């Protein structure tokens, strides 16, 4: 068959497909195609593909091939796209997907926890025993500011003296910007052979341990521990989970096993994303607790009770939630 006849025979089909695609691309407004017509799209599309292949193999003119290629290229994403249902997926994720992902990657979680907790404990006891050690991780100005923030004379831990309840909101925004950002960076820098993640975990462990040890040494228990114990449950756990996600990326690059590095990276990234998104939700909750509860002026006892509830809640959620009857762990 010569090209001109081929074109004359099939032009109506190509026009029809082009029109169908215009319709399918329309996200709003009324569609011109009925449901039955839409269902014909896959069959028409495959016909178009065979025309394209035919035009190529018979050596028809380049612009015809390009025109058909353009149609095929446009149709491909329309046929294979996925859409919708994100609310349900989010709910399922919170109710089971996320804790399951954490348990699936418990080795990474444990490693991340170790990288955070070990320096924190060492530095914490060091700073508790020795006064000057804090200056190895913080400069004088920061130490002075931190000391005044937790000084019982200021009465409201976590707030400077002029801080009002309106600034609770401000701090909520600040915690989101800062803490979730740190969580995301902890994850992302894992792709650099895991080094970035390890650095952030170790560094945060050192600083947090140093502050806790130093402040306890000064005898500010009454202000520091009631303030941090509540949101710490969500915040620290979430950072450790982000660390686990970063280590997943790092492992894919350093030791991909039987797969190519790129393939290992893609598989691990999908897994790590679940951890990061869950951790981001936890950090959001932590920001809420930190801004509106931790800074409140209630008795330390009340703070400790809520903190105990939050810690056991986090641990129970991550270890038990989403264990199904069908053996899903």
């Amino acid at each position: 068959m010569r090209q001109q006849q081929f074109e004359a025979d099939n032009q109506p089909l190509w026009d029809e497909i082009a029109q169908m695609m215009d319709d399918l691309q329309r996200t709003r407004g009324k569609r011109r195609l009925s449901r039955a017509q839409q269902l014909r799209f896959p069959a028409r599309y495959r016909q178009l593909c065979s025309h394209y292949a035919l035009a190529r193999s018979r050596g028809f003119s380049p612009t015809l091939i390009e025109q058909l290629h353009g149609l095929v290229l446009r149709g491909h994403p329309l046929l294979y796209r996925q859409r919708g249902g994100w609310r349900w997926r989010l709910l399922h994720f919170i109710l089971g997907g996320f804790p399951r992902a954490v348990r699936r990657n418990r080795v990474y979680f444990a490693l991340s926890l170790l990288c955070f907790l070990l320096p924190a404990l060492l530095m914490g006891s060091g700073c508790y025993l020795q006064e000057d050690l804090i200056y190895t991780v913080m400069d004088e100005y920061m130490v002075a500011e931190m000391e005044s923030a937790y000084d019982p004379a200021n009465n409201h831990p976590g707030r400077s003296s002029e801080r009002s309840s309106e600034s609770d909101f401000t701090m909520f925004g600040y915690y989101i910007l800062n803490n979730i950002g740190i969580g995301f960076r902890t994850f992302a820098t894992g792709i650099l052979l895991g080094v970035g993640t390890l650095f952030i975990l170790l560094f945060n462990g050192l600083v947090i341990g140093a502050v806790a040890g130093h402040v306890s040494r000064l005898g500010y228990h009454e202000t520091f521990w009631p303030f941090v114990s509540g949101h710490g449950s969500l915040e620290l756990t979430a950072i450790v989970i982000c660390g686990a996600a970063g280590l997943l990326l790092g492992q894919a690059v350093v030791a991909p096993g039987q797969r190519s590095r790129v393939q290992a990276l893609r598989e691990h990234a999908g897994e790590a994303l679940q951890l990061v998104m869950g951790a981001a939700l936890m950090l959001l909750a932590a920001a809420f607790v930190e801004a509106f509860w931790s800074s409140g002026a209630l008795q330390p006892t009340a703070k400790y009770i809520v903190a105990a509830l939050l810690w056991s809640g986090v641990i129970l959620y991550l270890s038990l939630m989403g264990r199904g009857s069908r053996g899903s762990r």
Partner: protein
Amino acid sequence: MEAGLTEGRSIHRLDTVRRYEIPEGVLLDFRLAGPVVRACAWAIDAALRGLLYLILALLMALFGGVGTALMLIGFFLIEWFYPVVFEIYNGATPGKRAMGILVIQDNGTPVTPSASVIRNLLRAADFLPFLYAAGLVTMLINREFKRLGDLAAGTLVVYRDRQQERIQPPVSATSKPPVELSEDEQLTLLAFAERGETLSIGRRRELAELLSDQTGLRGGDAVEALYAYANWILKGR
């Protein structure tokens, strides 16, 4: 465009066309976007983001503490999710759109939400140690211009194909080529006929006169002769 005509030739090694075979058994060509065009897109987006930050800051200054909170949350969302929102919605941020490029999955389908989130969170790593140095190095050492985020998410940045009007070959006489032509030669003639009108007259003649040894014609006559052969290939006698 010539990529389609020279399958399997060494020309592909120099080209930035990436081929992907779809389930229907045909090959799709994607033209990969390189570092320069992507940097331009990024610069446009950076300017837009700066503008958004400014508007947000000015607007929220009116609402006191709660306003500051909303501003900071807005900063957070713009910093991390500005590209994600646009990429999920239409495959490209405004900057990419302006540069005529878009993000797709490796298999040619639209970028999925999770892939978009992965590639944009990993900007934090690509950016290190300054101004996307890590991303640039990664782009230059793999053949698909992928930065770290693209590698992890399995995404490509390609040129948005602009749908071209088909140029009809000029109406002319039809005559049989004097010698038997191979398929490649036939295609070259067709390409000449279809694109001839977009070239200047001088260039058209210059090209046609490459065959003067065979046709024995020069100038406008040589062009007409080639058109006539192309017509014969299209229509037959």
